């Protein structure tokens, strides 16, 4: 660790820092919605912010790829009278956990592929990200260690770690450096601060461990063997196909594009909205054919998108271990349980081979 990159913010100066930050540009942070539900919303003071929170209902993607986004404005006159639109609003997001930072890293990779998605990329460049470390597990649904997202792995401008009386803050980018300079509430970190941080990380290395009994690098192989596993059939009976698991997923980015005219039928907009592979019409095509008609096929697809296909295409898991899909599922479909079932089933198969 290079301590040049670390500064500290004393807790008594936190409220001043947040107020200052909120005056620089729109500030977003986790707030409590009651019933142990949290959401990223606009804040203007430190007291609005829930520093201890479990993953919010919706992840950060709602700011990076809004639920409804205009792409094009057009006129129905002859010829192509259309103009591309990028909707953006500069903002700072405070308090992103490592799982959500990983989610944004996934989206960055997806939307940087050619053809590049300039709507996403332009917006992303106007968003400042300030991370916040999880010192403990949020709850039993998280599986962040399995997918290597329990410790900070970049993707932020500043990263806060709560060390009791103060936060130690990793300054990662020039934008982060400017925030430290302009707000002026930070002090240099010294050796004792660095030791405190190291002690916390040691503690975390003891607390956090793979949440399902498998090595991460064996996961793709497990999925290679599991396409016809029994567990998909089981999910078919339980899944209500409400699409909540994908809507709350930090790395799910599927969208639909639609055109809409105004009532004069002369002017219109093309916009995109979130879509979900779990909804019945998602894979329905002309002629009424649906190539993922069964809920089992749709659920299986979701898991393969997180643990198998993304490994080939982006060399990483697209599950960030936040646990949202499990927390939100009315039917109690649990990501950890599904993985456990897959592991058990594959072990059974190995045994059968020898018997």
């Amino acid at each position, binding site marked *: 660790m290079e301590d040049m990159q670390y500064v500290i913010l004393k807790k008594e100066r936190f409220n001043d820092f947040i107020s200052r930050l909120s005056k620089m540009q729109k500030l977003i942070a986790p707030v409590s919605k009651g019933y142990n539900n949290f959401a990223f919303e606009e804040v203007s003071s430190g007291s609005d912010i829930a520093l201890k929170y479990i993953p919010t209902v919706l992840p950060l993607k709602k700011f990076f790829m809004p639920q409804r986004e205009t792409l094009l404005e057009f006129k129905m006159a002859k010829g192509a009278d259309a103009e591309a639109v990028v909707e953006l609003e500069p903002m700072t997001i405070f308090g992103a956990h490592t799982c959500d930072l990983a989610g944004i890293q996934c989206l960055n990779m997806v939307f940087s592929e050619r053809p590049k998605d300039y709507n996403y990329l332009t917006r992303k460049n106007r968003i400042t990200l300030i991370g916040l470390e999880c010192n403990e597990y949020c709850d039993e649904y998280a599986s962040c260690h399995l997918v290597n997202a329990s410790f900070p792995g970049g993707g932020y401008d500043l990263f806060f770690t709560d060390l009791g009386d103060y936060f130690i803050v990793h300054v990662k980018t020039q934008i982060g450096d400017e925030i430290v300079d302009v707000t002026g509430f930070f002090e240099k970190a010294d050796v004792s601060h660095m030791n405190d941080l190291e002690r916390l990380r040691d503690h975390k290395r003891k607390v956090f461990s793979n949440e399902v009994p498998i090595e991460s690098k064996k996961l793709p192989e497990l999925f290679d063997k599991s396409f016809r596993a029994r567990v998909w059939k089981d999910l078919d009976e339980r*899944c209500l196909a*409400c699409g909540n698991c994908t809507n709350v997923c930090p790395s799910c980015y599927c969208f639909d594009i639609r055109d809409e005219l*105004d*009532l004069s039928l002369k002017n219109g907009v093309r916009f995109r909205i979130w879509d979900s592979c779990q909804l019945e*019409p998602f894979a329905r095509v002309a002629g009424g054919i649906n190539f993922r008609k069964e809920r089992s096929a749709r659920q299986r697809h979701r898991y393969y998108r997180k643990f198998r296909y993304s490994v080939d295409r982006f060399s990483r898991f697209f599950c960030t271990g936040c646990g949202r899909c499990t927390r939100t599922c009315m039917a109690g479909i649990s990501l950890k349980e599904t993985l456990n079932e897959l592991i058990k089933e594959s072990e059974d198969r190995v045994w059968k081979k020898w018997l």
Partner: protein
Amino acid sequence: MKKPKVGIFDFACCEGCQLQIANMGEDVLSVLGSIDVLEWREVMSEKWGKKLDIAIIEGSITDPHAVKRIKQIRKKAKILIAIGSCATIGGVNGMKNNFGLDDIRKYVYGDSYRFFPTELTKAVHQVVKVDYFVHGCPMYIPEFVALIKAALQGIPYYPPDYPVCVECKLNENVCMYDRQVTCLGPVTRAGCNSWCINNGNICYGCRGMVSNPNEKGAQDVLAKYNIPMELILNKMNMYNKCRELT
């Protein structure tokens, strides 16, 4: 383009959906600017009685007179739009179907009940062909506007065929089940932008059920939350009793 001739008609209902049209603020000017309303009892006194491009129907069909009248309207209209739960799924009027028809008539009209013939409550499409549906009690104005646009362009409008939970989650509402309250969102067709839950109420199922619900899964969920099947069926029947008719 010539403005389409439009008539707005009501059957058994509270006329609240027509009120929604009158209440929609600025949009009403754009809507009325793009159509030619020739008959609308709640708002104007003129009668038309001739051919129409679009007939907008509110309310459910509950007696022989209504059956005759809706059939006449259908014959005169090129396009027929059903608005509001009463018209699209039968709605609360369907609760009548829980009882014997004579008992109902006696209860309402007393001794002179014989002068008031009645029938099982039906949604409009259970009597005549319906081209467009605007679900909801009352209907959701943005959906009505979207549908009018589709009708003007002559293209189909597809209401979402997924549960209200989808929109509710996008609005980041705290789940009613987390608050220990039973809500019909998981089995009810979306399209209302989870209007009721956004405002602190539960979903009453006014838009009808999704077309392919996972019944076994839904039963498991009820069991998980210790909710008796009967309670949910009762709640569902408040708006959806007519689904039992074919």
